[in-house]
């Protein structure tokens, strides 16, 4: 790998941080909308800067960060998605007391996620994870309800334990093998050893990252957090961190630090987590009545699909990036729609059944919901298909057809709950003729236009990624998301 300057590697983050600073200042003057725009603009600017860097081959800067190629693309996607979600939360943030600060916080979470995706040093990774986690606790809490307070606390307690495990793993590696926490040095220090301390550290760090992903059995915080957090916050927290963490995990485990470890260990550890997460997520999702809680469970299953990739090794990195980009966008749409429905139907109890007739009364939101749900299922014509196609394709080409089969069948089961959403939105509900009229008398509510707009923008992205490859192949994916 070549080297480029550290400043260049962190340029997107620096641009985004400027936006955060702007947001905090604007918030201080009570200009919430400006704060939101500032944070969003900073993120968008960071995304653009990161996007520009994608043409460069991957390069390690000062042993701390990796940038260029797919790493920069993932950063760009993380920041760009966050920009859309933040601007899509405008309606909610304007009406929330500390809205400007929350916008800044959301931006911090995104920046931390981008840093995670680009980290090449355990300490950088740890600090980014912490920053993201702290922002996450606060965002969950920001709903200011009993549930969100409770969920935030639980999130925190488990998060702290996971962090401890990470630190323990770091200590073992650093203390025993490295002269530094940077991947480059660690790998040199270990020099291909598979001694028990190495594998122990492997497991500890894997668990910490799996916790962030919400993989079974480290998932317990996720349903509580995503259900109780404001939907706009969940839109940010559900997908973007997963994308970043999985890229970090792939880089760390399959290329940078543990590439020499016995592949069967990676296969079994991640394969077991993958299958367990799929099984838990899809079946757990079936039992849910709350829409956002169902999405949280389904997220566990999605993590299961993603964890197939590290079980397969480095070649699957591109595939899993596609999978999680699609997931992050679709999950953002799904949660944003929840925010939108809450604004137009204040009486909504948050259940899936409560979505009855939404597709008819609010066609735009309905359409976004349709695309998001089909993308989450992995139906062709949406982005979700290509993610699963590539990941399971990698599994098959590595000979693990049964892993692919489990994954695909889990997708089938997942339609049980994703389809239930569509069923509620389109098949249920009062007579379609009177629905629109009966729904309108709710004068004090204003529809969350930014949320539905953002959802639609992301929907178009999902469709675009879904359809474009049919015409132009997956070549562009391969070039964009090469991590070499």
């Amino acid at each position, binding site marked *: 790998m070549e080297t480029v300057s550290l400043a260049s590697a962190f340029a997107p983050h620096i641009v985004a941080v400027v936006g955060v600073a702007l947001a905090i200042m604007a918030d201080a003057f009570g200009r919430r909308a400006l704060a939101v725009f500032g944070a969003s603009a900073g993120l968008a600017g960071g995304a653009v800067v990161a996007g520009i860097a994608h043409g460069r081959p991957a390069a390690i800067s000062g042993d701390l960060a990796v940038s260029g190629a797919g790493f920069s693309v993932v950063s760009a996607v993380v920041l760009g998605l966050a920009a859309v979600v933040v601007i899509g939360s405008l309606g909610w943030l304007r009406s929330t007391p500390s809205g400007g600060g929350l916008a800044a916080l959301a931006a911090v979470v995104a920046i931390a996620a981008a840093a995670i995706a680009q980290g090449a040093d355990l300490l950088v990774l740890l600090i980014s994870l912490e920053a993201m986690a702290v922002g996450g606790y606060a965002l969950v809490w920001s709903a200011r309800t009993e549930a969100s307070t409770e969920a935030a606390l639980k999130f925190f307690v488990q998060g702290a334990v996971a962090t401890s495990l990470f630190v323990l793993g770091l200590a073992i590696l650093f203390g025993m093998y490295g002269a530094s926490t940077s991947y480059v040095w660690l790998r040199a220090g270990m020099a291909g050893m598979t001694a028990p301390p190495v594998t122990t550290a492997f497991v500890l760090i894997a668990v910490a990252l799996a916790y962030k992903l919400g993989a079974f059995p480290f998932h317990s915080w996720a349903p509580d957090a995503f259900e109780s957090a404001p939907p706009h916050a969940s839109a940010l927290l559900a997908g973007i961190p997963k994308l970043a963490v999985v890229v970090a995990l792939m880089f760390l485990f399959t290329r940078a630090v543990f590439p020499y470890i016995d592949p069967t260990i990676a296969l079994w550890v991640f394969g077991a987590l993958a299958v367990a997460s799929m099984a838990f997520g899809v079946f757990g999702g079936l039992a849910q009545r709350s829409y956002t809680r169902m999405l949280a469970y389904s997220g566990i299953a999605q993590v299961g699909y993603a964890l197939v990739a590290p079980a397969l090794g480095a070649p699957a990195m591109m595939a899993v990036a596609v999978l999680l980009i699609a997931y992050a966008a679709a999950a953002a749409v799904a949660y944003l729609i929840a925010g939108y429905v809450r604004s137009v139907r204040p009486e909504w109890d948050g259940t899936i059944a409560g979505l009855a007739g939404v597709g008819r009364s609010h066609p735009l939101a309905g359409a976004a919901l349709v695309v998001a749900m089909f993308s989450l299922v992995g139906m062709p014509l949406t982005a979700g298909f290509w993610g699963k196609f590539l990941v399971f394709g990698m599994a098959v080409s590595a000979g693990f057809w049964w892993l692919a089969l489990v994954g695909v069948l889990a997708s089938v089961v997942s339609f049980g709950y994703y*389809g239930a959403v569509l069923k509620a939105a*389109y*098949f249920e509900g009062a007579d379609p003729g009177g629905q629109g009229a009966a729904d309108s008398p709710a004068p004090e509510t204003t529809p969350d236009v930014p949320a539905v707009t953002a959802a639609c923008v992301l929907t178009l992205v999902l469709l675009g990624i879904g359809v474009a490859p049919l015409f132009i192949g997956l*070549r562009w994916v391969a070039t964009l998301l090469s991590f070499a």
Partner: protein
Amino acid sequence: MLAVDLLVAVPLLGVAAVIALGRGSATRPRAIALAFSVAFTAVFASLASAGVLTGTAVDGIRLAREAFPFWTLRIDGLSAPLLALTAVLGPVAVLASWGVREKAAAHHALLLGLQASIAGVFLAADVILLYVFWEAVLIPMYFLIGVWGHEDRRHAAMKFFIYTFAGSAFMLVGILTAVFQTGHTGLAEVLDSAFVLGQPTLVFWLIAAGMLVKIPAVPVHTWLADAHVEAPTAGSILLAGVLLKMGGYGLLRLALPIAPEVFEAARPILAVLGGVGIFYGAALALAQTDLKRLVALSSVSHMGFVLLGISAGTERGFAAAMLVMVSHGLVAPLLFLLVGQLYDRTHTRDIERFSGMGATLPRWATLFTFAALASLGLPGLSGFPGEFLAVVAGFGAWSYSIVPVMAGLVLAAAYNLRAVKGTLHGEIAEEWAEISDISAGDLVPAVVLAACIVALGVWPMFVLDMTGDALALIAALAGGM
């Protein structure tokens, strides 16, 4: 030729047109949809000049392979009859839903979308594209059943989707294996290098599983009855008419050529599935009191002939399968159309409640009798050539083992005539004495289908001319003759 691509593009343009121009109107969407579905038929007819009707393969416009690797469309003898079927059923489905006024734009947009996807399935010459269209079919069907269906439509829509999606899941893994092990996605390339497959048996059965669910073979058929019963008429028409054909088509197009030696070993299993389907489906149909369910289950029986024909492993058997598919693609839609028209007038499908409708609805009764006779395989109508050929080919392959199939044929006569007897015959029911016979508008789609049924029955070579070369190639692969 551009026309090949237009077969997918025209209905998609129709979707856009219906949404753009038809929103908010109850009647405009159907006119637009009819125009576009007729345009589809016209495009297909224009392909006749390229020799499609005599089995010439025609490629879609060749885009730069480098830039457009998946977009490969091709008509050949195997797909041409099924596309012809789609071309006939498109306008029929639109006409059958002429009375849909509730959210008409969405309904017709979905119909056209369904048509585009189905055409795509039959046209795709790339396995990934094939799979994409294959799954895309589910989406409009899901909504058609779920939104415009009958009482239990929600459950039926979910069941339909999950069940057939589960079938496709196996198929996807099979396709993934083929793609990632051969390193190609183009159908021809994949098949050419299929010998590299490490586990051909696995690949075959994974792919075949998807097909068998779609056909559907017993015992994975139970999605069908619910979906058919609850679907709106147009949905049933396309479901029975072309969706089920995807299974038989897929077996011949993909499963067999990708692993011919596995197919050879699998033939007895396919034969048993087909034979059981023929008998079991017919027996179930005999026991139904719901007219629509009866027709739905008769599909299981008819599609059993497809499996039986394919299981023979010979060109003749494959020809039988194709003939049965095309025929069933005309007869079942006609029956569903008629049952739908009856339901529109009586709001029931219960055979026990009907009596003497032959006197009340003479025009409808004539058509229904006609359709029932076509369904039981009367010579001169489209059902006979295929079933006859299937029996001949099946006997050639399996000898006297196919005698149970004969029982299925007798049962076919029994359930069809029972349906006729139950609804049309007997003393005139006072309950329905006042209802009006079908209108001229109702007649149009029915007569179109009836004409096709007669035409195919009188001259089955219409299909065989198309399929000849393509089937000979497949049969050569299968080692038959």
